[in-house]
Every structure is written in C-alpha cells, then in structure tokens.
C-alpha cells in the first residue's frame, strides 16, 4: 500500500507519543470503492491521543468517507482501522468507543433534548439517576442547562448543534468524530463555536477528529491537518507548516491564496526550474525600484491589472513583464502608503524574500 506521494508527514509532538502509548486512531492502507468510484485511495494516518485533528479537503475528496469508516458506517474495501491499537475494521458502529457529531445533527425529533443526550447512556443501561446527572452536566458544558425539557424542533440551529455535541461527549468516548459540525451555522456563530469547540476539547482531553472543507476552520482549531484530494492525503502538517510550507500545488492553492510559479517564469524569476508557491502577503509592492529592500532577493517588474479593496487589506493582481501574473496582498495599515496610488495600469516593482518561495511538488497520482 505504499504509494510515492511526496507527503511530508509531520509527526505528532514528541511528548504526546512518549506518554500515551498507541495512537488514538490509526489508519493503514485504507481504501473504499463505491462501485467503480474510488472514494478513498490508500490512506495511512496516525492521530495521537488528545489531538485536535482536522481532515480538510474539497467535497468528494474522501474525507467524510474516512470518517464514516472510523465510525463504522462504511466497511473499507481494503486496509485497517485501529482505535487505541485495537483493530476495529469489522466492528459494528455500536461496539466502537467513538461518538459522532453529525453534519445535520441527527437529533431524535420524538425525544426531548435531555432524552437525546441521555440516549447513549440509556442503551448502555447506565442507572437512571446517574444518566440524569451526566446528561445535565453535558448540557451545562455546552451552555444549554435550561433546555433539557425542550424538543429539538424548538431550538435554533446553533443550539441543536450544541445538543448534538452534548449527546456525543456525555458518553466520554475516546475519540469524538465531527462531520462538518459547523457547516450549517452562519459566519458569526461559526466563529464563536470554533473557539468553544477548541476550549471543550482542551477541557475534556478527548481526541477530536474533525472533517471540514473550510480551511480557515481547520487552521484556527486544529493541532494538525491532513489535506485530502481525490481520495488521497496531500500533506499532513501543523496549521503553520501547512500554510508556510505547502508540500504540493494543491495544498498551496487550497489552504489560503497562493501564487504558483512554474515553467519559464520560475527560471526567470528564481533562477531555477520547478514549481514554487509564494503567499500574496509576502510580496511587497513598490512604485520605485529604489525602494525595494536590499534583503529581498526576488524582484519582478509588472503592470497592475486589477485592484480589489478588501477592507482590512488590498489585493492587487500584477501582470509580470516576464509573463504570468502574481497576486499581492497588503494590509491597509496606513492610507498613505505607496500601494494605494498603484492603481490600475501603474508600473510597479514586486519583491520578496527568497525564504518565502516554497518549492511544491505535485503529488503523483499513479503508484
């Protein structure tokens, strides 16, 4: 099941691995086919205990299918799923010590909020008094202590989301699986929940395995992120490394905005052939070549094609004299900087530090 993707596997922090034994989740050569469609194409992944791990990718990249195989809803075509070192590949969902927060929450509409939260304890025959207390605790943890007697239909989207969370964490699973849990919430609520989720995970010390297509969400919350593309992992890295050192053009393009320089432009600009990525905010824009800082090794001249005002920043698209174009992002710290007067059609000089040019290698799709 070895395939030569140029995946830089960033290992989980050393201290975690020392004290906590086998990884919380371990996937080996995981594969899933639906008819002739290969949804997941050989995934190897270790997720450490207590880690907040995100699987990030566009829709159809296989991340949700991987999550469903960890939960037990799909049986892999090939490969293994291990939880805490135990092979659970063939185990039914109800025998696995994981709980899921579903994308549409999947709350039971015929039960009250409290009954929903108690459900997992009820089917495991936990005594009534204990499950009352634990359900109430879980509801308070998600700030819904007063809502136990309501029906899910009487709650807002954000509240339902938190009930789904309480229903899962009340069982104290080893691993919590979250399938785009914030997808249905509006932007403001989503931002709040991101902070809350992160806090909750730290409090509980449970391993979170989180599926999202939102790169910002993945970057803000996760300890590590696996970027999925067409059923494969392109890169596993910490948010910072993923952003600063994307391993493949896909990662560079999917996580944040990126300029990919390749072919002739690479040779002319950087003096060597290959494919390179540089983030728009690393590039400086000057009207006068004399203003280019001396430590900026890479320079290029061009003409501004488009200027987009984004509020906190301004984005300019510059057509290079060498051919190709670059996106430049500049914070609007002061309104008198030169960038502002570099309107459409202005001749400008771009420069950036050599270290911000990252060599990216396309993941080869064949074995």
């Amino acid at each position, binding site marked *: 099941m070895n395939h030569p993707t140029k995946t830089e596997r960033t290992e989980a922090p050393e201290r975690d691995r020392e004290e906590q034994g086998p990884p919380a989740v371990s996937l080996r050569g995981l594969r899933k086919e639906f008819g002739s469609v290969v949804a997941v194409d050989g995934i190897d992944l270790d997720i450490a205990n207590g880690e907040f791990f995100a699987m990030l990718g566009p829709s159809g990249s296989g991340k949700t299918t991987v999550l469903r195989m960890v939960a037990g809803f799909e049986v892999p075509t090939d490969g293994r799923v291990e939880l805490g070192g135990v092979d659970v590949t063939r185990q039914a969902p*109800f025998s696995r010590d994981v709980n899921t927060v579903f994308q549409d929450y999947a709350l039971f509409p*015929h039960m009250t909020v409290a009954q929903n939260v108690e459900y997992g304890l009820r089917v495991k025959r936990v005594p009534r008094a204990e499950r009352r207390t634990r359900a109430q605790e879980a509801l308070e943890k998600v700030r819904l202590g007063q809502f136990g007697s309501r029906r899910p239909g009487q709650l807002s989207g954000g509240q339902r989301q938190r009930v789904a969370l309480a229903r899962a964490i009340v069982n104290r699973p080893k691993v919590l699986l979250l399938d785009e849990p914030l997808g249905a919430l509006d932007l403001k609520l989503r931002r709040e929940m991101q902070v809350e989720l992160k806090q909750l995970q730290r409090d509980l010390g449970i391993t979170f395995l989180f599926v999202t297509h939102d790169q910002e969400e993945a970057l803000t919350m996760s300890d590590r992120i696996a970027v999925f593309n067409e059923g494969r992992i392109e890169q596993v890295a910490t948010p910072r490394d993923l952003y600063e050192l994307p391993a493949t053009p896909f990662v560079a393009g999917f996580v944040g905005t990126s300029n990919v320089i390749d072919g002739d432009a690479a040779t002319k600009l950087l003096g060597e052939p290959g494919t390179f990525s540089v983030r728009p905010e690393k590039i400086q824009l000057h009207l006068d070549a004399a203003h280019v800082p001396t430590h900026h090794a890479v320079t290029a001249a061009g003409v501004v094609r488009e200027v987009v005002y984004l509020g906190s920043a301004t984005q300019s698209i510059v057509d290079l004299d060498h051919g190709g174009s670059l996106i430049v992002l500049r914070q609007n710290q002061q309104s008198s900087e030169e960038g502002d007067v570099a309107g459409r059609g202005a001749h400008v000089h771009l420069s950036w530090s050599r270290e911000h040019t990252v060599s990216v290698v396309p993941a080869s799709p064949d074995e």
Partner: protein
Amino acid sequence: MRSTSTAMSPAFKMTLRVLTALALVVIYVPLLLVVVNSFNASQTFAWPPSDLTLEWWRKAADSEGAKDAIVTSVQVALIASAISLVLGTMAAMALQRYRFFGRDTVSLLIILPIALPGIVTGIALNNAFRTVFGLDLGFLTIVVAHATFCIVTVFNNVLARLRRVGTNLEEASADLGASTFTTFRLVTFPMMRSALIAGGLLAFALSFDEIIVTTFTAGPQEQTLPIWIFNNLFRPNQAPIVNVVAVVLILLSVIPIWISQKLAGATDGLAGR
C-alpha cells in the same frame, strides 16, 4: 393557494370553482340521499320525505343478518389490517434499507394487487384456495384475500416515511451504542408510528367495503356487510334496512380515512428538519 392566485385569471378561477362544486355535488348528493332515506317514513322512499322516522334504524338493530354481517366485516378488516401491518412494514423496511437483486420487481409485485382488477384477483384466489390449497371458502379465505391488497397501503405509507426520515437517525442511534434491535425499538418504530396508524386505518377501510374479491372468496356461510347489502338490496321489505346499514358502512369507512388524513397532516413536521 394564495401565492398561485395571482397567476390565474378571474374567469379561470371561476371555472375551477364551478367544476369543483359540480364534482362534489355529483359525488355527495346521492350519499346524502341514502342518509336521508334511512330516516324516510315512506317504505318506497317517496321524495321529498313526507315524514321522518327511526323505525328503520330500530328494525336494522333487530336484524340478525345485518348484525352478523357487520361483526364479520369488522373482524375480517381487523385481522387483515393486522396481517398487513406486520408484512407491509417488514417488506417496506427490507426494500428501503437493503439493496438486493430484483428489488424493483419485488416492489412492483407488492403494489400490483391494488391495481389488478378485483374480479381477476377474486377468480384467481378462488381457484387457488379450492384446488391448490384444498381449503373450504370461509372466514379465513376472506381474510387472506383482503390482506393481499391491504398490504399495499401499509407498505406505501411506511416506505414513504422511511424514505423521508432517512437513515441518519438510525446511524446516530448505532453510533451511540444501540444494537440493531434497540435502534428499531427506540428510533425507527417511533418514527414510523403515525405512518403505521395511517396505513392500518386505510387498510381497514379498504377491507371493510370490499365486495368483488369477497364474492369469490367468501363461502356460503360467511357474509360481509357489503355482500349482505347486495343480497338484500332488491328485497322490498329489506330495502329500508339496507339504507340504514349503508349509512353505518359510510361512517365506518369515512372515520378511519378521516383519522388517517389527520395523522398524515399532523406528522408533517415530525422529521424536524
């Protein structure tokens, strides 16, 4: 209703109203006639009724034949509905939750009896019961015959509900540690309950007023209510009682339909999406 009203011209709206009213009149005036005639003092149903009486209702209450027929019909309908509930639910779950070879064909075969002409079903069952199974026609054969088409209403109702509810809730239940049976008991069944009631009531109503298939599968001893009515319709001294029994039949058929409609409406918000 409101939102489409602007798209229709007044003349078109008027035409629709008149046609609807006409259709309702054609359907319901004869039924109303039966109800009124059950109180009509004239034995020949002179119209308009010169006087109203409860005599026919009293006579009907004393008629052993009518009472036996009602009891038989209720029993047949109850048992046929019960059989349909069990088999229809199981068939719907199998077809909705599992993929297997010939699935669409099986689905069609289950629904077909309701579309087949009653007389064909009747003759076929009559032959099969007597020659293949060597059964005497009677209560049992009526129940089995009715169950063949009553299953359809339960099957359709449950299938539609399962399709609407989806598998998410069952997955959530399994995820929380519930075994397959516990999931059925605590999640699937409660979600299906109103669909089962609606399907069961429809099955009851369908069985209760069935006459064609019953004619071929009832023995000489057993009379369901519709058959009793048909046999007594042209006996002059029984005619007034027939009217009374017909009213009872109308009520017993309409009430389940009305309840099942209410249930279907009340549970639209059930899935909670």
